């Protein structure tokens, strides 16, 4: 009975939504209320104002710079929340370490007090989540990773002219870190992109964004008014706004990349960062 009432309520609600949708303006209608007031200004003035052909980027990072700054702060806060909820610093050392010699497959059993071949390339540690060495996955990931990194940097830097920007590029950079962690193991990934590095960069990205805004205030403009930086860059006001957008996009990219790696490290290892996917 209760289930029936829920389904009936949902159907009435969904029917109302579909009924309302009929009153919406048509797709791409130039006379729609949303596209007659502010949109023509952005479309006409984006290139004279900011020198950025991609209107989405100029709105996101310049006209609505505040919004994007606090979005970055939200991402940073999500990373912090994940860190505080999951990270555990209990250093319970196991009694027995198992190390596998990669060339021969011989497994060494090292009890407490024995010498551990830490950092040696010939040995790999075996733990509860250890999976056998997979040549195809490792080689493929090693081959594609440099291209993924280059593409991510391109997406960040080319956001002025094509779809992309700090968020997307940062997520691609973070995904490359995750691919590395999955194809090798979490310990190798945390040795290369350490937790300290991720924490530092996630804060530094937000700081770079906010300090760009404060720098504009020092040059006599409003907060995040990049046009005030024109004497610093030695360009026109539009050029300075374009460069300011690039700087804040780099900040967003740094923050997002570090937060994605940090969240993955914490989720996949239960916050211990010693063993994981």
């Amino acid at each position: 009975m209760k289930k029936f009432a829920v389904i009936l309520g949902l159907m009435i609600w969904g029917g109302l939504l579909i009924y309302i949708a009929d009153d919406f303006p048509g797709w791409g209608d130039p006379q729609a209320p949303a596209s007659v007031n502010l949109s023509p200004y952005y479309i006409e003035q984006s290139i004279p104002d900011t020198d950025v052909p991609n209107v989405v980027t100029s709105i996101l990072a310049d006209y609505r710079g505040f919004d994007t700054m606090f979005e970055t702060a939200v991402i940073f806060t999500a990373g912090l929340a994940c860190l505080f909820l999951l990270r555990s610093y209990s250093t319970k050392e196991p009694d027995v370490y198992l190390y596998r010699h990669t060339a021969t497959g011989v497994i060494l059993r090292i009890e407490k007090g024995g010498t551990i071949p830490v950092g040696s390339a010939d040995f790999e540690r075996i733990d509860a989540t250890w999976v056998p060495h997979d040549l195809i996955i490792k080689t493929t990931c090693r081959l594609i990773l440099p291209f993924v990194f280059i593409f991510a940097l391109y997406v960040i830097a080319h956001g002025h002219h094509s779809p992309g920007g700090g968020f997307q590029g940062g997520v691609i950079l973070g995904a490359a870190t995750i691919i590395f962690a999955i194809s090798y193991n979490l310990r190798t990934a945390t040795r290369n992109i350490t937790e300290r590095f991720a924490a530092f960069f996630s804060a530094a990205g937000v700081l770079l964004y906010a300090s760009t805004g404060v720098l504009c205030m020092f040059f006599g403009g409003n907060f995040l008014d990049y046009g005030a930086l024109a004497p610093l860059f030695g360009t026109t006001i539009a050029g300075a706004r374009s460069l300011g957008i690039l700087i804040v996009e780099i900040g967003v990219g740094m923050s997002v990349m570090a937060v994605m790696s940090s969240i993955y490290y914490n989720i996949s290892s239960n916050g211990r960062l010693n063993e994981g996917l």
Partner: protein
Amino acid sequence: MIWPIDIIIISFVVICGIAAISVKDLLSSAILFGAYSFMMCLLWAVMGAVDVAFTEATVGAGVSTVFFVAAIFRTSRRTRD
């Protein structure tokens, strides 16, 4: 917007959404949710919102699926309800 492509994509979105909440296996649910995100990405690309489609493809279909899989790996794969 080409309506046959639109109809196909929207029906895939609905199918993926219903399947993702009705399967018992949480890993399948995560993968179906990734497929749902990818279909939404296609829908936005068809509508011309390429920036949104790009974000959906990287965040929705890429990284959040990985986070779901990692969380399932650390908890349980079967749902209780």
